[in-house]
């Protein structure tokens, strides 16, 4: 399963790179969502995939019984998801506000800060 997940992550990354290269900033945003999902999956899978053994300690025991899933990447991914959401929300409001003020979603036309020199 891990190799298959790796291949799937490759597809996710390829799709997000393709989206982020678009001129439309909304597509860029979609790429951002996909690439954070891909990154989370990479971290998660790097800690190895363990089926049906959540990292919980049963009542009465001092440590997990038998092998349980790797808790460390889970903790990392959990906060990464929330932060990724914060990043996404900020980017979305930025795109939204940009569209309202500049009237475009095309990144080539957003040249307020870096005006093109000498015509074209």
């Amino acid at each position, binding site marked *: 399963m891990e190799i298959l997940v790796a291949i799937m992550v490759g597809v996710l990354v390829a799709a997000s790179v393709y989206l982020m290269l678009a001129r439309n900033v909304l597509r860029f945003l979609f790429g951002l969502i996909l690439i954070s999902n891909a990154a989370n999956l990479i971290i998660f899978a790097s800690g190895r995939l363990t089926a049906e053994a959540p990292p919980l300690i049963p009542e009465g025991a001092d440590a997990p019984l038998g092998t349980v899933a790797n808790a460390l990447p889970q903790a990392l991914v959990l906060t990464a998801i929330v932060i990724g959401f914060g990043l996404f929300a900020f980017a979305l409001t930025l*795109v939204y506000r940009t569209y309202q003020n500049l009237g475009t979603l095309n990144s080539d036309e957003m040249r307020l800060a870096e005006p093109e020199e000498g015509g074209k």
Partner: protein
Amino acid sequence: MAKSSAEVPRVYGGPAGWISVAIPAAIFVWMLQYVGPVSAGNTVLLALDWVPSMDIRLSVLIDGLSLTFALLISGIGALVTLYSTKYLGTHPEYPRFVLFLMMFMVGMLGLVLSDNLIALFVFWEITTISSYLLIGFSSDEAKSRRSALQALLVTGTGGLALLAGMILLGNVAGSFELSVILQQGDMIRAHPLYVPIVILFLAGAFTKSAQFPFHFWLPNAMAAPTPVSAYLHSATMVKAGVYLMARVNPALGDSELWFWTLVIAGGFTTVFASILAVRQTDIKQVLAYTTLMALGALTLFIGTGSPDAIKGMMAFLVVHSLYKAALFLMIGIVDHETGTREADRLRGLGRKMPLTFLGGALAAISMAGIPPFVGFIGKEFLYKAGLGHEQATIWITGTIFAASVLMFVAAGIAVLRPFTGKLADADTPQTPHEGPWAMWIGPIILGVFSLGFGLFPDTVEAWLVAPGTWAVYGDYDYTVDLYLFREVNAAFLLSLATFATGALLYTVHRPMRAWLGRVMEANPIKFDPGWDRVLDGLKALAAWQTGILQSGVLQRYIFTIFATLAIGVGATMYLKDVLNFRVDWAGEFDGLLFKHWAVLVFITAGAILTAITQSRMTAIAALGVVGIGVALIFIMFSAPDVAITQLLVETLVVVLVAVAMLKLPHLGLAKDRKRRPLHAALAGVVGVLVTLVMVAVLQGDIDRRITDYFEVASWPEAYGRNIVNVILVDFRAIDTFGEIAVVVIAALSAYALLRGTRYGNTDDEIEEGRK
């Protein structure tokens, strides 16, 4: 702000001014207590830990050298701040001036008292920055701003070199404490890094002390208010470079490299600056160039390095600080009360400004080196040291002779000419009159010291020169002896020749100035315009490389980023041969159920669909599929917490996108069509590389030590059965705290973005919107 201060002119002669005088005066008195122990040959070490892990400490080293400097800084500082209360007291920016001056003084005191190299560097940079602010104090004048920036860039660049040198020296010596480093001179001189260390240190010292070829910023720095020139550019800051060279002399000195670099650069600066000094008509510029000359002479004698030379250097250091500060303050009074500093327009001021004349005359006699002033002693001992040194005897002595002659002339130009003669010949914008006592008291006190130290040379020898010489030479057994006159010897004869030549040149100094002007005009190498060309060149280079690197097209940036990533990762994988693994395909499909296949297919299909669809609703739905699919993977592989979080976040993402979509236009792909194959190719390459890296990681061994610790410690130590949560809120709580802070910042930024620009871009539009 500006309006109110123009309406009500505020006068700061009062508390703000007095406090600024009281602080340096108190420091001066405080430092006096160390004169006793230090003149007995002791050094005082005090220390406070700052960054102990990096051996950075706030440690204080008080020996003859640092005490001499500290007394000069605080003593002259008190006189200068007193002077400023009248000179700038009615200026609307006076409090700012006092703040900068105090900041400078703290930096300078810290610099000379620090035992730790890194602390010394921090204080060194404080003096650079405060000097920038002080030179550019008249910030509405383009000339001030240019001079300030020039001083900042020249000394700041040298400062960077110095930092590099200090780090090298610290590593070579195994300590950043000067008191330790200075004991290891032989080891440091034999080290292969000795040459780079010396070059870097001298780059710092030469820029700070305006040694040729970095001399051009100092005369420009005279754009600063006169008290600043008196304080920074004669008595203190420019001597920081001299201090540094003197300080590290026991560790870095006594080598051919050190000797020749300092002797040649110092000597050249000395002669060059004294000729330029005579050329000027603005008396403040005359003084600026004689300061340059003095710095050259000090460098020259540190380089010479014999005990006699160090003794002469220390004596001359004290002598010069006393008379040069006095002369700067004097010309400030003249400028303040007459409105001009042009040597040709000022005559016969002595009758109208007798006390200023007195202060100036005492200083000028010392500068001319006439007995019984201490200036005579300084010059005599420089001659003696020059004549007594085996190497480069003629160069050193000749340099000092030329400089002394021209100093004699400069003293005449600065004081004799403006104050004597008939007042009727003067051509001043204001009618001359005596300045307030707070201004003339400074030159007189300094002048009296110049005379007193000359009459009683044993005091200055015991208090300052002898301990200073021991510290710089690194030998506490050497007997320092200063005296006014004992016998007729070569040095004394040279002095007499100096007076004769000086007097002769003074009588013809005006035609000589015109002639020098013509010679200088013919000289094709000009440093100041050259500086402008260097800056223009830098700007052009910056514009050129910005044009190449920063196209302003987002797409191109992103393409560059991913292309770099692909090349970097690909090259590393190829070079490190990480692709050398065998995949166990049979085990891979073992136990794979329908649900696994379904999730894999759903996520892959969702990602591809998001990438290619033209409809934003389809894209959102496809993104939702990917998100839910990822959550399902988390569930299937035992991460319930992560799965719940992912599901909830996914829901919120869809809600937010849906809300925003109501106002956003459709996707529109048409414009990208031409570049799509290229984008798809790059995307494909990055995707394949990510897969390969991941497979390579998965084939390797996993290090579960941290996880094992968390599993074992979770319940017994942190009383939690959900290991993931225990990691988040206990084991790695400080990380989590940082992360939630990021979440808050993101939310507040988005909020500000939505609210702050709510009504439009310009103020008018906002007004419009409010109605």
